[in-house]
């Protein structure tokens, strides 16, 4: 198992080694020590391998991740898993602003709280936050599921398109064009599936959540396109 000590090796060297991995690599588990909050750790990964990071990471950790699994035993800075395409990112602590921003696929699980702008412009990613999320989360969210076991800050889902926002706790306020919706059987099934993938099989039930989404009244949304999302 490769072990990289970021007190001795640069993030650039670590990322170059990760970028060189192929789909059939035998080095499927990597350990990264002393991350020290450095930025862009394991960004641009494109191989079915697991990276475990022992400590806090800075900005854009696991950004653009494709196929990989990145587990951070600590807190994450701004933009964790931004623009993730596929794979999984697990944050054992808290995440800073813009977690999962613009993510297109994959699963981001934050065991602690996420702060402002969680899931901003999300485009298909599934995000599960076990704690609370901050203000302006899911701003202009387009597709995917944001599941929050705690509460949400102000202006949730402002200018939202078609993402689903499942929140179990209180929501301070909803942003423009974001409304509460009835959970359909489909929503129920989708939520149950996301919870199961995040390893939540009893501590929260789909029935405990409220669903928020687009009222579709903003001028640039046309209902005929609803099936495209």
């Amino acid at each position, binding site marked *: 198992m490769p072990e990289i000590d970021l007190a001795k090796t640069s993030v650039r060297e670590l990322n170059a080694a990760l970028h060189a991995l192929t789909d059939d690599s035998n080095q499927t588990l990597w350990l990264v020590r002393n991350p*020290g*909050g*450095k930025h862009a750790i394991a960004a641009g990964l494109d191989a079915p391998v697991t990276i475990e990071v022992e*400590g*806090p990471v*800075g*900005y854009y950790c696991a950004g653009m991740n494709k196929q990989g699994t990145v587990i951070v035993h600590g*807190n994450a*800075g*701004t933009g964790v898993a931004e623009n993730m395409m596929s794979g999984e990112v697990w944050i054992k602590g*808290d995440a*800073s*602003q813009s977690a999962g921003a613009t993510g297109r696929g994959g699963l981001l699980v934050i065991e*602690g*709280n996420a*702060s*402002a702008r969680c899931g901003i412009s999300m485009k298909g990613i599934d995000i599960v936050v076990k704690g609370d999320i*901050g*203000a*302006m989360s899911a701003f202009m969210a387009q597709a995917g599921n944001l599941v929050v076991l705690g509460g949400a*800050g*102000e202006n949730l889902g402002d200018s939202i398109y078609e993402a689903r926002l499942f929140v179990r706790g209180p929501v301070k306020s909803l942003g423009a064009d974001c409304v509460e919706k009835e959970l359909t059987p489909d929503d129920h099934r989708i939520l149950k599936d996301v919870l199961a993938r995040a390893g939540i099989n009893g501590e929260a039930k789909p029935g405990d959540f409220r669903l928020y989404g687009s009222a579709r009244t903003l001028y640039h949304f046309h209902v005929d396109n609803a099936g495209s999302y």
Partner: protein
Amino acid sequence: MCGIVGLFLKNKAMAPQLGSLTAQMLTVMSDRGPDSAGFAVYGAGSAETVKLTLRIDHAARLNEAFASRFGFPADLVQRGTHVVLTIPHALEGEARLWLTEQFPGTHLVGAGTRMELYKEVGLPGDVAAQFDLPGMAGTHAIGHTRMATESSVTTDGAHPFSTGIDQCLVHNGSLSNHNAMRRTLIREGMRFETENDSEVAAAYLTWRMREGASLSGALTDCLDDLDGFYTFVVGTEGGFAVLRDPVACKPAVMAETDDYVAFGSEYRALAMLPHVEKARLFEPEPAKVYVWEH
């Protein structure tokens, strides 16, 4: 960019550690602001005296000149390029005037009963070492690492800015109405040393508090009167405050325990604090005033 750190001790027994912890926090924020750094430390003081932190040429001459002018020896402590001159409160105005006349080019970096303020061009770790920040004790400290955007890399452009007794402010962001606000404040009698937008924010708070506002009230007024983006950390003689603009453009993370409240632009600036793993960790909400006071 720019990096901010702040540490407000609730547990007075930690006072001897204040400087070394602040120095470590500041050094970690070097990547965010490698061109200059500064810090304010609220240490020992007395109600009868005021400390003037000066950046002064011919510091060696100051001792003798002061004694012959005021008839008693100067209480001087030199640290790097700065000198802290402690004088009786009653002599403050007279001494400041005398310094301007006898030592032209002297910069008054800050004044306070307890506040000392140091700033210099260079890497934050070097700046902290040059002034022996690790050896300083006190109740609270605020620091800044600067990546200059709105004005040039000079010692004057470094933060914190102090525009009132025991008051200081550090800023990450950029104000868009600072020229108009500076003119307003000049009409209100405030004086400016630089063209820097952050100095305007500091002077705005000094003006509000001079007009009777509390620290919390002055910061609430900022939300109406200052345009642009900002994360402010503010120190007063007994207070420590944080405000982010309504969009919360600039990063901020805080840790609170029974012993301290700490601020960092990124979590890594807090990672070395004692028992931070047990702290209540949160990011300040947009447009919300946070104040802690002794």
